[in-house]
Every structure is written in structure tokens, then in C-alpha cells.
């Protein structure tokens, strides 16, 4: 009798544990992958000459690029397009996360995305894309005419003739400095916070 009861308790215990095991595995896996992913992007210091061109933001307003980048505040810049399926949504979501993690400090930072498919990405399309992600008021999504955009891409060493071949990179600029920090590869929100802090705490 006692054996039977013990057997029953153990049986029940196994089945219950079996269900829970899935979630335990999940937690360990997230840790493992975080450890694996540390520093899996490349960081280089660059000098870029910003071309004197006009772009258009998501509200159709003209933006002169060098004038916009003159501000006394730091910048983070990337190149995306709205029908991009793989890398760009991650980069924009990461920008959004980066903003959130900075909290009040985000008021000091300009986030810029420039479309590399400007003939499709008109301001209307930019707005639709932005609505999907919770971007703050410090975010500008820029487009323009194709030749101008190609000039800008080339200036930032980010030009690929076929947009599907574009690589994920985030380019930081410190206020008042001529030097840029280029992050090549997919960086998480906390990675970007780390890099930003390196930039401003010099």
C-alpha cells in the first residue's frame, strides 16, 4: 500500500516536472546566447565627410544634412529601408530599445535612419514604418532622391548597388568631434548603450 502511494506520488511528480522542464531550458538558453553574443560586432574609428545635400524627413520637411549634423549633441545613424525584412526591423527595434534604456539621457541624442530605397520610401511609407515601432521624438527617418542618397551612402562607406546586400551597421558621432565610431554587425540595445557611454564619457 505504502509502495503504491509512493509510486503514485513519484509518477505525478514526473509528469508535472515534465511540463515545467521546457521553461527551465528557456532561461538557461537565453543566458548562454547572451554570453555567446558579447562583443560579436566590430568597432572602428572613422572619418567621414558629410556631403552638402538636402534630404526629406518623415513629415516631408527638408533637412540639410551637414547643418543637421552640426548640433552640439551626439548622433547615431543607420541605413535601412521599409520593405527590408531581416536586418532593418531588428535595427529599428534596437534603436527603440536603446532610446528606452537611456531614459532621460535620450533627450541628448539624435537617432537617424536613412532610407537606401528612396524611390519606394516616400514620407508616407516612412511614417507607416515608424508607427510600427515606438520611436521617440528624437528620431528622424530621412529619404530623398536616389542620386543624393547614393552620395550619402558612399560618404559613409555604406553603399551597396543592390539594397538586399546591405550590411547592418550603426554609426555614432560625438558632439563637436570630427570622428565617428562605426559598429559593424547587429548590436543589441544594451550594446548600443555601452558604446554610447564610451562615446560621451571620454
Amino acid at each position, binding site marked *: *500500500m505504502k509502495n503504491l502511494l509512493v509510486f503514485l506520488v513519484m509518477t505525478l511528480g514526473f509528469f508535472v516536472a515534465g511540463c515545467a522542464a521546457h521553461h527551465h531550458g528557456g532561461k538557461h538558453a*537565453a543566458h548562454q*546566447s*547572451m554570453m555567446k553574443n558579447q562583443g560579436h560586432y566590430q568597432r572602428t574609428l572613422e572619418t567621414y565627410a558629410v556631403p552638402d545635400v538636402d534630404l526629406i524627413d518623415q513629415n516631408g520637411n527638408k533637412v540639410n544634412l551637414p547643418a543637421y549634423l552640426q548640433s552640439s549633441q551626439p548622433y547615431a545613424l543607420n541605413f535601412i529601408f521599409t520593405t527590408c525584412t531581416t536586418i532593418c526591423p531588428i535595427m529599428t*527595434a*534596437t534603436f527603440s530599445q536603446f532610446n528606452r534604456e537611456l531614459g532621460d539621457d535620450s533627450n541628448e541624442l539624435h537617432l537617424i535612419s536613412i532610407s537606401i530605397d528612396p524611390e519606394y520610401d516616400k514620407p508616407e511609407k516612412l511614417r507607416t514604418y515608424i508607427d510600427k515601432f515606438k520611436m521617440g521624438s528624437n528620431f528622424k527617418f530621412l529619404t530623398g532622391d536616389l542620386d543624393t542618397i547614393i552620395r550619402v551612402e558612399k560618404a559613409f562607406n555604406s553603399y551597396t548597388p543592390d539594397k538586399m546586400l546591405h550590411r547592418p551597421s550603426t554609426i555614432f558621432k560625438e558632439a563637436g568631434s570630427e570622428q565617428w565610431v562605426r559598429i559593424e554587425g547587429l548590436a543589441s540595445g544594451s550594446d548600443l548603450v555601452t558604446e554610447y557611454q564610451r562615446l560621451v564619457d571620454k
Partner: protein
Amino acid sequence: MIKTIKIRRALHRAALLMLFAAGVMGQKPCFAKTSLTDSAQVLLGQQVYRQGRLDNSQPAKALVLDDVPVSGTQFPCLNCHRRSGWGSAEGTKPVLPVSVGALFSPRTGNYRRRPSYTDKTLARVIKTGIDPAGIPLDSAMPRYDLPVEEMTALVAYLKTLSKENSPGLTSDDIHLATIIGENVEPETSKAMLDVLNEFFQVKNSQTRGEVKRVTHRGYFFNDYKHQSYRKWILHPWVLKGPPASWPVQLKKYYQQQPVFALISGIVKGDWAPIHKFCEKNQIPCLLPNSDQPVVNQQKDFYTLYFSKGFILEAGVILEHLARTTSRGKIVQVFRTGGSGAFAARALKKAAAKYPQFTLNDLSLTPGQTIDKNTWEQIENTQGVASVLWLKKEDYLALAAQKNSSETAAKSYLSSSLLGQVDVATLTQHLQTVFLADPFNLPEVRAARFRRAEIWLKSRKINISNRRIQGQTLFACMVFGEGMMHIKQHFQRDYLLDVIDHGEGMTAYTNSYPRLSFGPEQRYLAKGAYIVDLSRKKVDSPMPHEMWIVP
């Protein structure tokens, strides 16, 4: 120790009952049976896959790059894995397939080796990112925190994704169709058919040898390579009578012989009946020769157009006006029942975005003569501009009616409607004339057409219509590239996913200055020129042209 037999028996029964209950509980996986029918489950799974939405239409929740919370609507499976589930690649990131063929077979070899997925391991990988070999997926793959009902539905859907070949195939052949409107000029449809027939013949002669090799399964035999070939068979589907009767004819043709895809094609009038047929039956319709496409709010998937045709021209004209004139009245002139009328409707619709202009229509019946009265009417109503949606003869007849006094109003013409006319003729009577031109400018036309010309000449095809033949050849090439990439996975959605990737195709364009592909972009040409014809004088450089993307 319990002594009485009765109590012992009762306890025995209770114990057995508990064992049974435990057994039943243990057999249920962590996603439970829901109350949905099988087909309803698959439908919900499709919603989760394509839109990232739960049953209650709220976005699903997920985590990407380990610490970035995102919503399912930002990261629906469809975005990266594509509609067919065959995956994609972008820059440095490959996205592996999640079709039935990929998930439910083991991956051998050295890259991410793993056994086949089961329902359980599939649910686990979606939630936690751990694959059946215990290896975590790349952190770019989101971990989706799906409720039980949606997870079950998604798994059910994934077990159907690109499971079978699409209709229109046998083991030897692939059936394809092209649309020909009965009242299209015979020389025009012949120009198109010559290209199609010749392209098919060349393709079949090249692949025939490959297929024969299959019978000898030597050392280099490769399943996927040799199962990828089919003989291309072209079915010309002639559509007779009024467009309202076309859906019935299309259905009948399809029932007689289902086809894998529609390639190219030409009709007089609106492409809408064919567009709707293709969308309803999920048949790819690749690059018809049409300036009257369907442009609607819902994201239709199956018809790929060169451009928005007259809708593009209308948009470009209005945009040019908006940039050069502050406000005023516009009159548009067209004949009812034809392409001019389609263009006029398009302009009317687009004009809603430009409240600074008031639009008036001046319609002419098909047989109506153009005379002084016509011109007077235009003069009286045009205000700042007239848009003349007229064919060459009509335009010249109208321009000849103009009296000698200058008018400050601008006239806009449509290059698609006019066809080939020299500038001198166009500006003979009217001075301020602008041409909406979606095509290559004259000075580059010959160079851009050269590649197509070489192919056509080498195949001994009479070059009677450069635009149609160049476009049809391009459509064939795009289809051929697509077929090459889908290999033996003959799924229609896969064909379109691959074409969207569009790499390398843009070198073959000839009519249009720029065709660009992109995920789910269905109108390849995005802009057009506005050419200021009045600046064109004999012996002077080309007139001022502005490239506008409306």
C-alpha cells in the same frame, strides 16, 4: 497498516484512478488541444505567421537580440522567412527555411546539424530558440511568447507550408499561360508571342540535355539538380468579347489546363479582371504589358507590374504642376471608353491629394470629331493647365485648332498614349508642352535596347515593337531566373519571394530607366520624367527633364 479489506479495495480503486489521470495528463504536451477545427487552426496559424497577430488580433510578444522586446506585427514570421517559408538572405544574415521540406527532415552535414523537428520541439524552438540538437538559434531570431492556442495553430500551419508543389506541373512538364486580348492588333500580339515562343524553345532545348542525364545516376548525380527541370509549355489564353466575360473564360481555360503561372500578356483595356483571377486563385502573373494596372489598398501579392502605368503618369503630372504652379484650374481631355478614360480616372483620384487644383473633365465620345469648338472649350476651362490624354492623331488634330494667340496655360501629354512622335511635330502648334514620359529618354534608348536587340536578332525575330518585345523578353528572363532559384520546389509563393529578391535582374531592363525589386513591391518602376518639350529646339541639347517619383 490499513486492516479492513473494503477500505483497501477503495484505496486501490482510487489509486488506479489517480494513475489513469496521471497517465492522461502526462501524455498531453505543453500545448493543449483547442476547441478550433483543424482548418480553423491552420487559418489562425497563418494569421500568426503572416501578421504576427493572436486570435484576438493583438500583436504577439517576442524578444530579439536577447534584450529587445518587440511585437509580432514588427516581426511576423513572414518578414524573414517569407511567404513561402523558404527563407531569404540579406547582407550577412541568411534566414533558414521553415517550409515542411526543411523543418520535417533532419539537417545533416556540418552546418547546424539537427534531427527533424516534431510538434513539441517546434513549439520549443519558437518559444525559447533552442533547436532539437539543443543548440540556440542566432539571437536575430526572435523568441515568441505565444499562448497555447496560437502556438498550436502556428505549428499546425507550419505543417502545411510549401508542403506540395503548386498546380500546373507533371513530372515532365510545367504549364504556363499568356493572356491575349482578342481585339489587340494582330501585329502587336504577334510581336509578343514571337518572343515568348522563341524564349520557351531556347529554354527547352537547353534543359532537354540535362533531363536526359538523369537516367544515368552516376557519381555526380544530384537529386535537387536533376529534379528541377521541366519542359516549359506555353498556352495562349485568348480573351474574347467584353471584359465582363473574361472571368468565365479564364476559369474555363484554367479548368482545361491548370497553369503554374501567367507570363507577360497583353489586352486592350483594364488588366483588373485578370489581376482578380490571379489573386483569387493564387497564381503568379508576371509583368503583363499593361498600363492599366490594379492599384488598391490591400496588399495584393500575385501580380507583378512594370509600373503603375497611367496612374504613375497622372501622379507625375500633378506633382510637377504642384512644384511649378501654386493653384488653379486644370482641365483634362480624353475619349470615353478607352485608355484615356482610365488615365483621366487615375488623375481625378490622385488630384484629391492636391486641393489647390480644381479639376474639370472634357470627355469626347469615341467617334466625336475634334474641331475648333473642342479647343475653345479647353481654352475656357483650362486655367493653369490642360492634361491631354490623347493618342497621336487626336492630339495633332486638336493642336491644329489652336489659334495663334499665346496661352499661358501648360499642356501635358502622355508618352504612353502618343507613342513615337518627334518633338517638332508635338510643339508645332502648342508652345508650353510637357511630356509625361516613364520611358528611357531618346538619347539612351538605343543603347539600353541593345542587349534585347542582339537576342531578338540572333533568334531571327522581326523587331516590330521595341517596347512590347523588350518588355516581354524581360518578363521571360525574370521568370527564368526565378525558376532557376526555386529549383525542384515548385511552389508559386516561392517563385514570387525569389523574384522579389531581384538581384542582378536590373541589368536587363530596356524600356524603363530604372526597375527596382523589393519584398512585396509590385510595381517595379517608381518614377517618370517630365520633359519640357518647348525647350527643345533643333540643334540644341535635350530639353529640360525632371525625374519625379510621385
